[in-house]
């Protein structure tokens, strides 16, 4: 993972962290976290409950709004992990640990959908919140984040798989 010093520090601490906390989920939220509705639309893989036809119809407008496919995907796939967990007694390491698990699930699913593509997963932490998003990595568009990750002050990083 390419990460800022703040995220690296969190990830290092996570390696030795042993949680004794239990997670509480509504089953629908757990499904949305681990296996969201991925939809392929014109070389984008979005997370949406809308049909392919509906998303295709609005695709040009979406690209106009977000600038390119990378911008559209990164905005569309944003998921603040904390919102899907019922209990609030969890710390940043618990949430981060779960986020890494979700990243593994998403990458496996996405590779099933498009095994040729590279996906850029972006994790950002603004304690106590952790947000995960992704976009396909396209050479022509680059990453959603700035190339030099150290230009960010916060805890953020990306992993291209």
């Amino acid at each position, binding site marked *: 993972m390419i990460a800022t010093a703040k995220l690296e520090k969190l990830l290092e601490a996570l390696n030795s962290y042993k949680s004794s906390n239990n997670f509480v989920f509504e089953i629908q939220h757990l499904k949305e976290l681990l296996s969201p509705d991925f939809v392929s639309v014109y070389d984008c893989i979005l997370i949406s409950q809308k049909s392919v036809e509906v998303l295709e119809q*609005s695709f040009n*407008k979406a690209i106009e709004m977000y600038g390119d496919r990378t911008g559209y995907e990164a*905005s569309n796939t*944003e998921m603040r992990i904390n919102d899907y967990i019922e209990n609030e007694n969890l710390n940043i390491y618990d949430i981060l640990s779960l986020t890494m698990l979700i990243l593994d699930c998403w990458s496996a699913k996405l590779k099933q959908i498009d095994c040729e593509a590279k996906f850029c997963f972006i994790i950002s932490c*603004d304690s106590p*919140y952790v*947000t995960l998003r992704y976009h396909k990595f396209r050479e022509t568009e680059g990453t959603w*984040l700035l190339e030099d990750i150290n230009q960010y002050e916060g805890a*953020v990083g990306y992993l291209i798989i």
Partner: protein
Amino acid sequence: MRSTIFCKSVIMCPEGDGGAEDHRVGENGTKLDGSKTTGQNGKTERVDVENPAPGKRDGDIHYHESNNTKWRYDLNKKKLVDPDSGELAPPRVQKALEQDWFRKAIDKAKKY
């Protein structure tokens, strides 16, 4: 460092004037590494601002309903719109614009 250029660039580039290539929303704003929440009402209802690459990508303000449905805030229309189609959100959703916490959150978001 904060800047009010978010608002300024909108004035410089109203929708459809063809100037979007020259001036991006939030182009001199703060680099944000993800979504920054500028106002929250309850556990999930909130306003977020994103500006990951000022000058390279447009900044973006959006609203999450309490059920986490996401709507984009259109700076020109000053309305909430569908994040995929840009069509106006239903009146039920637009009511959020009337709430004090929401207005404060939008004003704060524009300063990034």
